[in-house]
């Protein structure tokens, strides 16, 4: 692959199927990059002492994709050397140990991709309209991304 053809790309996907870490890492690998940093969010079997059976995710898809694109734009402003960004989120049922979100970022040197991937997951958790239904053994509870209120998405 010629470096000049390897223009920066954002890969954004919300889907009901299992996420693949092989796939997201392949998407961002670039011949001019020496670093890929990844984050995987998985379903944990407990929350505040309660046993979690599974999670169910629901998104305002068009708005979520718009917010994720905004995160990508922010990343490119903050770390201009970042090459590719992949952000995949699973919707629907996500059993314990399976991934609900995978983020991968490539950059020539490691510091940028490490910082960018941290920024991506923190910002996704704060601003992207995705809701999580936490299902315990005999009850459930809805969680929203904590800071997920908008005055105007053109922010």
């Amino acid at each position, binding site marked *: 692959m010629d470096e000049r053809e390897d223009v920066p790309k954002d890969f954004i996907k919300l889907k009901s199927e299992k996420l693949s870490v092989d796939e997201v890492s392949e998407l961002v690998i670039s011949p001019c990059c020496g670093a890929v940093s990844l984050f995987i969010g998985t379903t944990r079997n407990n929350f505040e002492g309660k046993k979690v059976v599974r999670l169910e995710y629901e998104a305002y898809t068009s708005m979520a994709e718009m917010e994720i694109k905004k995160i990508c734009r922010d990343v490119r402003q903050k770390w201009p050397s970042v090459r590719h960004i992949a952000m995949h989120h699973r919707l629907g049922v996500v059993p314990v140990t399976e991934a609900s979100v995978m983020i991968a970022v490539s950059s020539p040197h490691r510091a940028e991709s490490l910082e960018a991937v941290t920024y991506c997951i923190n910002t996704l958790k704060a601003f992207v*309209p995705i*809701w999580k239904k936490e299902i315990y053994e005999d009850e459930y509870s*809805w969680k*929203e991304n904590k800071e997920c*209120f*908008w*005055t*105007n*998405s053109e922010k």
Partner: protein
Amino acid sequence: INVPSPCRPQVTVLYFARSAELAGLRSESVCVPQRITSLQLWEEIVKIHPSAECIRISIVLAVPKSSFMLSTSVLKLKGYERKKKK
């Protein structure tokens, strides 16, 4: 925003998560005055879905390409205004 009659604009209200469970639906159109605060819109919604009163969270007021939190600031229904000006 669809403007059905010469009268009042409609907004599409989308319900997610717990609010969708309480409202029993995922989206509906609500007729609103041309100028309305999101808090007033919220009051309209509670009239239709009294069970929704207990939660304000996970409701997004969707105006094309932008969304609003519940507040007392006036929603600018740009789409409608543009249509009126023409």
